């Protein structure tokens, strides 16, 4: 089980997406997943070993690191990627349900089981809303946990067993900040794409409904 699994999952979703949905998948693959695996993971690899406090007291470094970094940035990033990709599975399940139904009844119930209309449209809209919601939740979590999108260069720690207020230094501070901003920027881009797709689908189907009613009235 690795990121390849997520990649295969999302490739399956791509089939039933709109054009904007496909752009979203491309952005997630290239600018989030690939950047995470190829670059970001290695920056945070030895963050605990490289976290240094100006004291020899055993346990002080561990306690201070745990206090200032309850959940590492890179783990939050990975969780965000997984959570944000999962709502798309709802669409895949719904299409599979439609195809199963057709098989069960042994006749064609839908013009095209993969076409986004009726119940599948609702599922698609729900998945978009969930994706956007989860992105926002993670961005807020990042903001709250780390007091804004900042990584300090050094922190002052006085938790037991540290005998006094010690200076602790974080490694690769600038590089981590750059990639954190990159994460926030791509997250915002994905939120904009999701909102764009929501509006597009909403307007498209409102206009379709309106035209249908208009034609019926005329008839």
């Amino acid at each position, binding site marked *: 089980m690795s990121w390849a699994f997520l990649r295969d999952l999302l490739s399956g979703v791509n089939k039933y997406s709109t054009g904007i949905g496909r752009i979203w998948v*491309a952005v997630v693959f*290239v600018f989030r997943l*690939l950047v995470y695996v190829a670059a970001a993971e290695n920056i945070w690899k030895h963050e605990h070993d*490289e976290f240094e406090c100006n004291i020899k007291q055993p346990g002080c470094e561990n306690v201070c690191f745990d206090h200032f970094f309850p959940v590492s940035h890179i783990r939050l990033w990975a969780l965000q990627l997984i959570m944000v990709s999962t709502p798309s599975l709802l669409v895949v399940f719904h299409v599979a349900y439609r195809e199963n139904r057709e098989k069960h009844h042994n006749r064609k119930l839908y013009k095209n089981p993969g076409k986004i209309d009726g119940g599948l449209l609702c599922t698609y809209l729900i998945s978009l809303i969930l994706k956007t919601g989860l992105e926002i939740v993670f961005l807020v979590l990042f903001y709250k946990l780390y007091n804004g999108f900042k990584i300090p260069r050094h922190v002052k720690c006085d938790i037991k067993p540290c005998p006094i207020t010690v200076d602790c230094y974080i490694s690769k501070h600038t*590089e981590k900040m750059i990639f954190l901003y990159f994460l926030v920027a791509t997250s915002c881009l994905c939120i904009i794409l999701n909102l764009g797709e929501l509006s597009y689908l909403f307007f498209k189907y409102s206009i379709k409904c309106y035209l249908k009613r208009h034609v019926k009235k005329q008839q």
Partner: protein
Amino acid sequence: MDWGALHTILGGVNKHSTSIGKIWLTVLFIFRIMILVVAAERVWGDEQQDFVCNTLQPGCRNVCYDHFFPISHIRLWALQLIFVSTPALLVAMHVAYRRHEKKRQFRKGDQKCEFKDMEEIRKQRFHIEGSLWWTYTSSIFFRLIFEAVFMYAFYFMYDGFRMPRLMKCSAWPCPNTVDCFVSRPTEKTVFTIFMIAVSSICILLNVAELCYLLTKFFLRRSKRAGNSKQQPNHENKEETKQNEMNELISDSCQNTVIGFSS
């Protein structure tokens, strides 16, 4: 998701590229991505652990390392390769869109479309003309811009392309100006120069491809202008009408506007 997946995506674009484009893609994968993964990552692997400062002051090493290497070479190269490969995705998306349109026409049973089955549509190679020419040319233009921006960022951040052996650091909490030693400076310089050289070659290939496409475009235009001037003299009215009809039919096959599928 890794470089292999990027290779799969870009490999699809290869079919619709010019010959220079295919050479560029090969250079990208063999001399940049493969070298990055197989060699460069090992050279920079121990960069912070083996960055040594002549002091026992805790925190001094961290701060000095962060001061001299705001973003590691290896990460900058990875970002450069990702950004430089991305414009090719535009071409991939455009080709996928065209293919999708053709499949739709085929399914509708359009007599004007010249394909016999879906397999032929899937295997078809699109020529770089019409709107695809614009997409392709813009992708090369963006590639050039990204390459230039990253090369400049490199030069600006590291004051040239040489990795010094010794750096003098006086950032707090270092008690005085301490000597800090970089690990494997010569090997890093060699790889930096290699990557910069290959980057320059890629820039040259992109410029050549751009010139080639522009030349082809202007030649085609002048040929069409030349042909349209000659037509009233050499062809009779019936042949002119037939030619216009054929052009209309082939245009409508390529440019029929059907919205995004859903």
